[in-house]
């Protein structure tokens, strides 16, 4: 069944997980044969922003060697056949213009969400 994964909560535990765990589970389910798309809303729309860099953290002698690269992980969904949408107003409210975003993100207005949801058999809000 075609499923829309809605991701809202950005940067939750992403340093110690080295992933956004919903972007990650989307990749994993796609690998298991799922037919999926992703909608970013709320703070998660920032995942589509260029120029993110979470590198360089160390805790005493423990250095993080695999910092998360959330935008890359997000964009890697698209060539796998997972379209990525983002709510237009949530982008605008956070000062994100089109030129701030990676290419390939499909913008959808809040008023357009019912029509988007209707394209899927299931809608999961993570």
């Amino acid at each position, binding site marked *: 069944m075609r499923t829309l994964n*809605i991701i*809202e909560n950005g940067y939750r535990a992403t340093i110690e997980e080295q992933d956004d765990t919903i972007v990650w589970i989307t990749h994993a389910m796609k690998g298991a044969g799922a037919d999926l798309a992703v909608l970013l*809303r*709320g703070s998660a729309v920032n995942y589509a922003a260029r120029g993110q860099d979470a590198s360089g953290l160390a805790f005493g002698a423990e250095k993080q060697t695999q910092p998360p690269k959330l935008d890359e992980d997000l964009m890697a969904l698209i060539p796998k056949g997972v379209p990525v949408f983002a709510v237009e107003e949530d982008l605008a409210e956070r000062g994100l213009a089109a030129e701030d975003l990676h290419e390939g993100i499909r913008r959808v207005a*809040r*008023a357009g*969400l*019912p*029509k988007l*949801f*209707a394209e899927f058999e*299931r*809608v*999961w*809000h993570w």
Partner: protein
Amino acid sequence: MAKYLLIESRDPLESRDSGNWYDLARDLKAAGNEVTVFLVHNGVLAARKGARCADFARLLRSEVEVLADDFSLRERGIGGDRVVGGVEPAPLDVVVDRLAEGCRAMWH
């Protein structure tokens, strides 16, 4: 058209996004779907008479069905006469009923 169950667990006075969630419910309804908002946890704080939340008041003026978990209401001391008109206290069983009926359920 589809049936939607939008579960709202957040206090709208704490979470600005609750307003967006209520608006989503109204937009889904306007698009011809059957829509219920089910308040649970601090989401029921909006349902106390006298609570000041314009977004919630706008939701209540719409045709979206608004239910509130009776346990969450009781837990917060929101007795029957203190529940604002337009919100119906309901047992959590309703959520399981709607899931069993195939409602598209989303938790906020």
